[in-house]
């Protein structure tokens, strides 16, 4: 109670003004546990997965491995699908960011594979200020699910966020660590 750890995001425009902040998941292993706990997770891909390079791979390659490890359904927003297909993967949904978040608010919704509501939603590659707004929506209006922002800029409005990871190699380490943990667990 004395004082609490509150994540300060990379981008100042994303500073939290409030009382409910993300738990910082500094260890990939913790992240894997969070994913394992979920009954019906969903992974939302934003356009940066196809624009940003992580070492010699594209971010989407890591994101796809994470999804594959637990057969997590993928929602490919914006125009991500096009690039995704080049990697031979078809998205389960192509709702755009706001649309998928709108459906996720509804506990009665069938989910992208008709298995009922998603209890964990992973996000990667959504523009940071935009993702923060959507995470706020879910934080306030979707008490039935948790969000995990797999983004090196950190997201206070998520339930689980990464610490800020300024260096790309450390970012790659985190992603590889998470994949490793998922594949060994």
């Amino acid at each position, binding site marked *: 109670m004395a004082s609490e750890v509150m994540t300060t995001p990379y*981008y100042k425009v994303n500073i939290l003004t*409030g009382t409910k902040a993300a738990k910082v998941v500094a260890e990939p292993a913790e992240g894997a546990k969070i994913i394992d706990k979920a009954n019906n997770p969903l992974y939302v891909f934003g356009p940066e997965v196809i624009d940003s390079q992580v070492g010699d791979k594209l971010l989407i390659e890591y994101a796809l491995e994470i999804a594959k490890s637990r057969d997590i359904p993928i929602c490919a927003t914006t125009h991500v*699908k096009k690039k995704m297909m080049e990697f031979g993967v078809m998205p389960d949904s192509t709702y755009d960011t706001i649309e998928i978040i709108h459906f996720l608010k509804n506990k009665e919704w069938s989910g992208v594979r008709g298995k009922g509501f998603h209890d964990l939603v992973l996000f990667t590659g959504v*523009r940071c200020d935009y993702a923060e707004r959507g995470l706020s929506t879910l934080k306030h209006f979707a008490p039935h699910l948790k969000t995990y922002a797999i983004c090196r800029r950190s997201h206070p409005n998520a339930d689980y966020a990464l610490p800020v990871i*300024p260096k790309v190699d450390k970012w790659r380490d985190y992603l590889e660590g998470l994949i490793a943990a998922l594949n060994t667990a």
Partner: protein
Amino acid sequence: MSSGKMRQDEVRKIIRAEDEWEPVGPTPMPSLTELRNWDMRLLDTYEPFYAPFCDLCCLCTFGKCDLTEGRKGACGIDIAAQQARWILICSLMGTAAHGAHGRHIIDHLIEKHGEDFKIDLGTQVNVEAPIIRTVMGLKPETLADLRKAIEYVEREMIHLVAATHMGQEGSSRDFESKAFHAGMLDHVALEAADIAQIVGYGYPTSIADTPLVDLGWGAMDQEKPCIVVVGHNAITSNAIIDYLRKNDLYDKVEVGGLCCTAHDVTRYSSNAKVIGPLSRQRFFLKAGLADVIVTDEQCVLTDIPIMARESNSALFACSDKICYGLENASEKNVDDILKAVLEEQKQYLILNPEKAAEVIVRTALALAPQRKALKKILNTEEATELAAKCGGTCEACNRACSNLLPVNAAIHQAGQGDFTKLSALFLRCIGCAKCEEACVKNIPILRVMQAAASRETYKMRSGRGPIHDVEIRKVGSPIVLGTIPGVILFAGCSNFPGDIDDVAWLAEELARRKYIVTLSGCAAMAAAMKKDAEGKTIYEKFIPEFDAGCIVNVGSCVANAHVVGAAIKIANIFATLPNRANFELMSDYILNRVGACGVVWGPYSQKALAIGTGAVRWGVPIVLGPHGSKYRRLFISNKEQSDWTVMDGRTKTLVNTEEPTPEHMMVTVETKERALVTIIKQCFRRNDTPPGRAIKLNSYISAYKQVIGTLPDDLQNFVRTEKEIPIVYKREVLAYLKEVGWKPKPVLSLPTIIGTYDTKVPIEATVK
């Protein structure tokens, strides 16, 4: 409000009910709650989507109140209603900005021409004020009639502001209904303001090919004394033009504008220059090219007095909205003012436009020679030297950037004499200067950008004002049938997520596909900032008519009214439905039959929020760039999972159309690629005829394939009959539809939501 007999008589008097042009409809000058049922009907299909910007409320001294996890404030409000209250507060700021602007211009022109000054928009425009006619039931004939419109806005506004006080409205849906009201009032103010300045200043009207004007910071001739007008209200700027003309100084002095004043001053004089949109304001002012800076109102950076001092530019504030704590010299003698300005660099507030004009021009003439040395643009060597201090690693700049840009890399590279990244960055920069403020090495980043910013001069067609009645007659039928796939308005601000010229890309993609493309405000300026291989901008390449595959700049923010007005005219002139005091009938027609879509790709202002919220009440869907998510609220349907039952006006029966059109009423998208397909989709209407729908589907499929690579994943939602499948894609589409188990859907000849909710409008009224 009191809707008693007295008030009714008062209203009938204001709108001259006895005027013959049309019988008075059900809702003349509607008050707060009169269109509430319409609003609730919209909200049933298009649910408010809230993205709280803060967990708390701090609006009264019981707070701060924590609104997380279902907690209520001390006043009982919940997080949803609190977001909706914010939306209302911000919409009101926008409505007030336009309303006060309109009041100021109208009063000023009445002083000049008298209140009986006639409204004449030329031979091509007979339905002069579709919005005011529809909302108020008044056919404005004089400036005094336009004043009535503003008085109506003023009267309604106080109730809306009151509703934001603690312990007032408690329902998010009713806050949204009030925000819709604010938005509709905003449109009334827009229309009144633009009509007033068109007739009062003789801006071009009833002509389509308005002059092409120079745009860009390179367009300003540094050798001449340079006056830069900043803001939205051209009263002082136009007085400056008058003074220059009267004194034969016109070719000796440069007048350039930033933000909408630039639009309006170029409508008054095509010799004036457009420097750029809001996102270029700080960059340009810090470059110090302005000998005199003139501020009026709205979208004016609040630290201009400081920037003016830094660059030794003179500053005159000319609006009661923006006084900067300056001494009011409105009644001071001109020579005393000049003396203080030139000798003590004093900055003044001057509220008398004619006096201000004289002072401003004379100051520019006197100051320019002294400032020659200051008007040098940084060369690459100087810029490299300034940037050299950057190690490129601390990233304090990036973290502070309001557009999340990689400043560090660009400045670091510039420090090594390479401006490639900085030039690219400049295209995405919205000019907030937070990077510069944050820079641990105090690098004057915005000045360094001078060496990276293109000095290109672009051609923008100056704002043309209202769409012509003949144009409406020509396009009305194809639009309603769907054979013209849609009318697009690019409006609003320059808070773009990506390159400043993405608007040009979108406009061209749509014009190529035969959409009618219109633009206004900063978007209209930004769209000029891209040249093709032959060095042509879209304004030079496309015909400036309101017709398929053409591109029209309507003008400044207040000119947005004319595009909504065009939609109304389609119902009124083409379909000959009565619009007088008939808001629901017009909006229902637009929602169901006019494939129009508003796009605000770089939203920032509360005005843009008010305009967008008003558009939604009119039945026009809005697509916003990602920054729009920070407005806190969107209107989203449940797509194929919503109930899309409407009335068939002819059979008077409820029909489940099974098609989500228009799909959302206010939605943000993250990339220009997704924007393209979303805009196209928002133009689908229930009323589309099979051939019309086929044309729209053709655009949708081609664009979707282009940016996403496959047939649209929701194609089945929008194909109603096989006849609608575009021939080129026939086989592919049929196969797909089969695969997803598509079934034909009903095609209505007269879709309407009148009759699906409690309204005074009889269903018969929708049939003509």
